[in-house]
């Protein structure tokens, strides 16, 4: 190193020192000597941290964007303020579920290394902690790639196990030990699909012949699968994918295209209740698939929400022809599943594709149309507030 610096650089160095010195008042630098030993200065008036997240609260709703074109991801909206409170990244075709304490979010998703091609990665991504940060992922052996369907991914009621429905090479459910972050086994369910958990380790799946497949594990963790009798006519009036179920009680409400509700208590030996018609509960003739029958029918992307504490089923209903089970609902019908009575018919401000209801003592009812979230009082049907959203795919609320 030269003893004397180049004149130009020395002048520059001196100028820089003066500049820093002027700002810091550290005149010792101007003379070229080392700065005094002390803590580095803090220049910012404010720090930039992360707004704390205490878990999905009772009145908050989380939803996924329908597809990647609109930004993707999982978003949390507060029902009392209609504000966005948190967001998490996800791939297209993702599903997601909260742990029972609503502080950990599991996202079942698939990526390809080069976007639409390359090495495929199926993973269960984990988000949690006070900042809802990524906490790694569990590799999955595969998962179904489809438009969003609620029951392709589920947690056991106690949150210990995750269940991911896979389609290749054959229908199967991957059982994941979530605390251990390990896939335990893959349970094949030939000819069946979707996952409706019950008990500590059991789950049921709907089958293409109109029956249920019931899977449960013995003490050694080995699964057996049994098929029940056929309980619905799959070719003429199948049970809808988005039927509602309550994991804690094990009650599933399997609703068909024509609005027949099949209450089934899920267990190793399921108990099938007598089916009843939503239209008949409203004093109408039951809907059928007869050509030309225009009547009220359930429909939408997620047409059902169940509130276990008051035994209420909320259904998006539209007036239409047979086979219109994905038409949005112009009304929400509220039914008591014990008495099988229609309690209310509420108009929605815009035809809605999804419906959800919170599980607390002052429940909120959420109706989601193409670009709006409507927050309604779940006991009166009054619209309280609304906010714009991206086109929704799936919804989950606290207390589920």
């Amino acid at each position: 190193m030269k003893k004397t610096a180049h004149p130009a650089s020395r002048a520059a160095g001196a100028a820089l020192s003066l500049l820093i010195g002027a700002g810091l008042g550290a005149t010792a630098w101007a003379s070229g000597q080392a700065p005094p030993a002390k803590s580095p200065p803090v220049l910012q008036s404010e720090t930039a941290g992360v707004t704390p997240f205490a878990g999905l609260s009772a009145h908050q709703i989380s939803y996924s964007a329908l597809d990647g074109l609109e930004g993707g991801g999982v978003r949390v909206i507060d029902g009392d303020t209609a504000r966005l409170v948190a967001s998490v990244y996800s791939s297209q075709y993702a599903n997601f579920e909260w742990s029972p304490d609503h502080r950990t979010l599991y996202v079942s998703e698939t990526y390809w290394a080069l976007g639409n091609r390359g090495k495929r990665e199926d993973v269960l991504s984990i988000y949690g902690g006070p900042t809802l940060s990524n906490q790694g992922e569990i590799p999955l052996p595969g998962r179904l790639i489809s438009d969003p369907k609620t029951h392709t991914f589920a947690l056991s009621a106690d949150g210990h196990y995750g269940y991911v429905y896979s389609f290749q090479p054959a229908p199967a459910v991957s059982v994941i030990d979530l605390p251990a972050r390990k896939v335990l086994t893959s349970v094949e369910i030939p000819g069946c699909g979707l996952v409706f958990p019950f008990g500590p380790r059991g789950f049921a799946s709907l089958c293409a012949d109109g029956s249920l497949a019931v899977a449960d594990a013995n003490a050694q963790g080995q699964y057996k699968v049994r098929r029940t009798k056929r309980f619905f006519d799959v070719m003429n009036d199948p049970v809808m994918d988005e039927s509602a179920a309550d994991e804690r009680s094990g009650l599933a409400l399997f609703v068909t295209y024509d609005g027949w509700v099949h209450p089934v208590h899920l267990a190793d030996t399921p108990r099938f209740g007598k089916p009843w018609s939503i239209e008949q509960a409203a004093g109408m003739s039951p809907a059928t698939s007869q050509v030309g029958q225009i009547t009220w029918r359930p429909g939408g992307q997620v047409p059902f929400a169940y509130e276990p504490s008051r035994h209420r089923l909320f259904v998006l209903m539209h007036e239409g022809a047979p086979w219109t089970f994905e038409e949005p609902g112009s009304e929400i019908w509220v039914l008591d599943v014990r008495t099988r009575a229609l309690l209310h018919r509420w108009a929605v401000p815009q035809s809605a594709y999804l419906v959800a209801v919170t599980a607390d003592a002052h429940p909120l009812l959420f109706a989601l149309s193409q670009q709006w979230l409507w927050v309604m009082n779940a006991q009166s049907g009054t619209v309280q507030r609304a906010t714009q959203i991206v086109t929704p795919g799936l919804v989950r609320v606290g207390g589920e």
Partner: protein
Amino acid sequence: MTPGIGRAAGRGRALLPALALVLCGPAVCAAHGPGTGVSRLTPVQVAYLTSCGGCHGVEGVSAPQAVPTLRHLTGSFLCTRQGREFLVRLPDVALSSLSNRMLTKVMNWVVFDLGAPAAGGRAARPYTVAEVARLRSEPLTQTGLTPYRDRVVAGLQARCGAPAALSVYGAAYGPGATPGVQPTS
């Protein structure tokens, strides 16, 4: 829409390149409407197409690692009793909405027409209605279907020289996929 071209049913031919959309091949286009260029499908073919053709392909070929190929291969299953029974005990076959009579016709079409030739060139007798009715009452609905198929196929290959192509299905279909777990019972 390409006009139909007369071909005898069951005659083998090479598959067209992927870019050419095949509307009907010899296995399906047995007859054609007069002057319309649209293939007329028999009830058996309609049953195959609506119950099976979506996943397995109009010509019995789709995505070989994800869905078993039927074309030129199902005939091989008739070679062992286990293979013969396996095809009818498959849940999507056994529990389909087709009647015993129609299902028998469809299965014979799938193994003798779509699935020709049989392994080792051995003649095999067609399924009977009584046989199909018996087999479909014992569907393979337990977990572990894929490993069971592997064992059936291994038997066909060892005893009858069935094609190696039967093993393509179920192989890891993408990097990152792991094989299924062994069955519990």
